[in-house]
């Protein structure tokens, strides 16, 4: 199993490890998922996300290549701005969800999911054959600092991020990439840096008493409460951005066609209307309802399933995301949990309010 540059730091910090996308990753530390979650919402949490994939696309036709791979217009993207988007397949299913940042006239950074690394790299490399653009997969450390005190902590650590707003990025020095983005619903930053400097930087941040290490367990509960999708659970190659509730990420003018792969299928499906939709769900009792549980209406007809579910420490109860038939009724939805029926209520997302610095 692969190890991130912070593996030794995690072990020394008493982490419980588990496998994730081929890496031996920290699940939680002695503080525990509940307190790690709450610490991030209240102060600043440091996450090792070095397993994620960084791809630089550069060259005269870099923007054209991005426009082929993803449903947005990179040519009009401001330098330093980050765009949440997708790689789509020919059927407009999601190959991966990712963030594309424009770093220069002809230079873009793609940050994508660890679990999709191989297929993402193969996909963009194949598309690149038709364009005058170079693909470089970067070796780097990657950490997230999330929570209301993240800005002050980073500024005190010598990185002035006060000029960044949500979904913008900068390169403070060669080999470093800092964006005001995250996966918790809180204000926060994601910082890519040279592998050799990663551990020292993490230790420097941890020397600040406002910062605690946070594992993948709380990363999942934080993103779930924020209503953010997890690829492989809430999103997959059979699911379109429209069904996934992510239509906002596709500019209006590209919903009826465009240069991107999958544009025709997307336009057709969008015109027909979606057959399934993603919804936020809360069990009407204290029992958590987890991914894979089937959903039925009050007459027992299957209408969908839970794609992510667990306990929301900030909400103080169980929360879930589900994919259901677009024509299913709002009331009388039941999840099957170990053979028992748990009534579910559709609720607006996010479960916990976002606190982005816009």
């Amino acid at each position: 199993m692969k190890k991130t540059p912070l593996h030794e730091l995690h072990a020394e910090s008493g982490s419980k490890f588990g496998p994730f996308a081929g890496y031996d990753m920290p699940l939680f530390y002695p503080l525990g998922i509940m307190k790690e979650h709450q610490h991030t919402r209240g102060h600043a949490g440091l996450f090792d996300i070095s397993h994620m994939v960084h791809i630089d696309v550069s060259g005269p036709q870099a923007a054209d290549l991005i426009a082929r791979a993803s449903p947005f217009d990179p040519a009009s993207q401001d330098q330093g701005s980050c765009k949440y988007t997708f790689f789509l397949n020919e059927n407009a299913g999601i190959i991966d969800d990712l963030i594309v940042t424009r770093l220069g006239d002809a230079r873009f950074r793609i940050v994508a999911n660890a679990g999709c690394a191989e297929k993402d790299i193969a996909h963009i490399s194949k598309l690149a054959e038709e364009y005058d653009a170079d693909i470089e997969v970067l070796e780097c450390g990657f950490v997230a600092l999330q929570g209301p005190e993240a800005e002050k902590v980073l500024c005190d650590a010598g990185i002035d991020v006060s000029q960044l707003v949500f979904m913008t990025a900068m390169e403070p020095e060669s080999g470093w990439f800092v964006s005001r983005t995250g996966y918790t619903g809180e204000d926060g930053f994601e910082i890519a840096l040279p592998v050799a400097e990663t551990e020292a930087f993490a230790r420097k941040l941890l020397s600040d008493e406002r910062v605690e290490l946070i594992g993948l367990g709380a990363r999942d509960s934080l993103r779930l409460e924020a209503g953010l999708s997890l690829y492989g659970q809430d999103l997959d190659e059979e699911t379109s951005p429209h069904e996934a509730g992510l239509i906002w990420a596709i500019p209006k003018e590209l919903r009826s066609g465009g240069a991107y792969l999958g544009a025709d299928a997307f336009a057709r499906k969008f015109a027909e209307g979606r057959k399934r939709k993603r919804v936020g769900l809360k069990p009407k009792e204290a029992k958590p309802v987890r991914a894979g549980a089937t959903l039925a209406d009050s007459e027992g007809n299957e209408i969908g399933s839970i794609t992510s579910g667990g306990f929301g420490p900030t909400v103080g109860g169980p929360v879930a995301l589900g994919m259901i038939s677009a024509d299913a009724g709002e009331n009388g939805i039941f999840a099957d949990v170990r053979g028992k029926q748990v009534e579910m209520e559709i609720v607006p997302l996010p479960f916990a309010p976002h606190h982005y610095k816009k």
Partner: protein
Amino acid sequence: MATVYYTDEHEWISVEGDTATVGITNYAQEQLGDLVFVELPDVGRTISKGEETVVVESVKAASDVYAPIDGEVTGVNESLGSDPALVNTAAEGDGWLFKMKIGDPSQLEGLMDKAAYDAMVG
């Protein structure tokens, strides 16, 4: 005086006469992390050794707790309904899961004592 036995599935079983109290070990709760829900069995249910009897749910996952021996459930820890984290703070005490009438005392013979269990989890 109760005698406490341990299973290789990380349950403890405290035996007094023909009744027993069952819980998960402190080691097990450390592995699970913060518990947020415990699904307890119905009182009166007949259980067989190895049968899924309790579900303990952490923030992240649901895990089964198995019946350590045959018997009948005679009581459950009602406090866990409002405070499932008792299992984290007092796994081998106030965080017990259920009580049972022992069906087959000979099944206790194959279980570990504390020293053997501690050696197993290292």
